[in-house]
């Protein structure tokens, strides 16, 4: 068995391959559903209904998609420069902590600042926290050649412990009756609802705006060129005069900042305070979303809505039939792997000999 490069990406395969990947994912997941003894068709219908079948379903899906768009962007931006930031999970928590530190501490007095000042300060603090957290592995990579995958992964565990420490200590909510949760954000800092009587909040607009911005920057600016050049071939980029180290550091800061913002927006839009389980792995899911989107920022939006729909739909489905909610993670993981294979199918031809 061997692969032969096609002269150019075959246009037919570019369409057929991703569809085949989706079909394959559905088949594999169907096998697992059948194994659980549930009716496959009904299960899929329930997932779809729960994720996209009603106004309420859509509102829940979009609420879930908001942080996923941001973590997906964080991964997509970094991966474009071939900087494997696997630390969005930790950066999200760091951002959430920073948001509460600015907007919730001091007895909720907010440093006596008006919300118009405090709100941007809160977002800035969250972005900064995420950026600083990502700067560390980026510097270790560019200065010492330490693979960033392992360092960003390990930092996730460290950050979670820091969060736990804070929730036990200086940021503990004294009124939470022993529950590990932080003090709440001031009411004036909470994001307003986008649609009445749902949980969709204006954070979604911020996420969409950032996706548009990222797309524009990557496509139209010199910085975007630098990022793409470094990601495609760092040696050649350096030869052509692209400041490679600076680009990687800038990408790291941007990626970390976006993941940090995800934390602040979750706190300000949904939870109101930090808990240790506020993210069910948004940072890791963001990586899958970025890959599904082919690292395209606009594609990230679509992929995030898809994945959020599957997650929300699986939650509601599992209340009706005996299929564990983990089927959602399974679908997402298989979708990632089969989409990867699909990209190969579009560029290479398989020869059996």
């Amino acid at each position: 068995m061997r692969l032969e490069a096609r002269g150019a990406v075959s246009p037919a395969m570019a369409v057929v391959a991703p569809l085949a990947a989706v079909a394959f994912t559905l088949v594999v997941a169907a096998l697992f559903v059948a194994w659980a003894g549930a009716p496959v068709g009904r299960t899929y219908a329930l997932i779809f209904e729960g994720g996209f079948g009603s106004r309420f379903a859509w509102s829940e899906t979009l609420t879930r998609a908001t942080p996923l768009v941001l973590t997906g962007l964080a991964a997509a931006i970094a991966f474009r420069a071939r900087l494997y930031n696997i630390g969005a999970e930790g950066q999200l928590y760091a951002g959430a902590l920073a948001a509460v530190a600015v907007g919730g501490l001091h007895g909720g007095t907010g440093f006596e600042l008006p919300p118009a000042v405090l709100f941007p300060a809160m977002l800035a603090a969250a972005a900064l926290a995420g950026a600083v957290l990502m700067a560390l592995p980026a510097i270790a990579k560019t200065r010492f050649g330490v693979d960033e995958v392992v360092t960003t992964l390990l930092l996730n565990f460290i950050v979670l412990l820091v969060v736990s420490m804070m929730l036990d200590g200086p940021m503990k909510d004294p009124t939470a009756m022993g529950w590990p949760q932080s003090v709440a954000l001031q009411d004036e800092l909470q994001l307003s609802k986008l649609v009445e009587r749902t949980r969709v909040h204006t954070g979604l607009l911020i996420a969409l705006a950032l996706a548009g911005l990222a797309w524009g920057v990557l496509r139209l600016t010199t910085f975007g060129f630098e990022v793409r050049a470094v990601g495609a071939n760092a040696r050649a980029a350096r030869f052509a005069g692209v400041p490679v180290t600076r680009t990687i550091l800038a990408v790291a800061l941007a990626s970390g900042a976006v993941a940090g913002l995800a934390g602040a927006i979750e706190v300000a839009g949904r939870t109101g305070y930090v808990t240790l389980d506020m993210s069910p792995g948004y940072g890791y899911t963001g990586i899958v979303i970025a890959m599904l989107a082919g690292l395209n920022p606009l594609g990230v939006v679509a992929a995030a809505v898809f994945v959020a729909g599957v997650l929300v739909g699986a939650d509601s489905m599992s209340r009706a039939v005996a299929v564990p909610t983990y089927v959602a993670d399974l679908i997402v993981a298989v979708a990632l792997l089969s989409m990867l294979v699909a990209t190969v199918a579009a560029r290479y031809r398989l020869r059996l000999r």
Partner: protein
Amino acid sequence: MVDALAAMLANADFWSAVLRVATPLVLGTLGVLLCERAGVLNLGIEGIMVAGAFTGWLAVHAGASLWTGVLVAAATGAAFGLLHGVLTVSLALSQHVAGLGITMFASSVAYYAYRVSFPNVSTPPTIQPFVEMRWLELPVLSAQTPLTLLALALVPVVAWVLNRTPLGLAVRMVGENPAAAEGQGLSVSAVRMGAIVAGSALMGVAGAFLTLSAFNAFFFNMVNGRGWICVALVVFASWRPGKALAGALLFAFFDAMQLRLQQADVGGLPYQAWLMLPYVLSIVALIAVARRASYPQALMKPYRKGER
């Protein structure tokens, strides 16, 4: 503080704990090392350990013997390794992304299967795990289970295979210069595939140690980053089995120490600070050795036969 430390170091129980904590790390690190010496990064380890922990335990829970459970875990690891091999060797996909995908896939399959098999349990069902080898009557070792002995024995075995056998030479060569290996008549993909499958089987056993020896049940998040630590330890060990053992022991030493110090409430630090210590040390170690690390030359470089 000094007294507390001295007492801890003089205590055989402490050293038993070190060895116990080190066991899955030794197995996992050897697994990663085998893959990487053949030129393939395997970030699937975290998920493969989860899957191995689950299937090994499930087999024993279903009535199989403990050693059968270990074999089942190894076979599970090998199966996911095969998948990783197809993705990264046959299809030459990005090893980073494929590995992360394997981790997500393997752990979601394990968690899903656990929930399907045990839909309505509030406390995890238990099994009778490996017992300590009291008959050995040696200070620290007799407090261990046979799996620890297996892990320790595998270190020289892997070192021997890599450095002294034609097979090991083949593995090193495909990790250093795959084109040369092919020019000498070896099948690069077969050797790489074999190394990934064998390494992943070890990762599966590393997971099984958690459910069959360290604990007696399967919990969510029980692997908790141990796989990633193994990936870091391989760099720290400069891709040598002996040093990998040393690295795993060093890590386990700090991990066990943090547990004791946390209980002793030394220094008034919150317990999370002690829990953090092993992770922080891993990062520090990575940075410290990075300058003199000599990577296998073809690590993370896919090889396509006949490419031009």
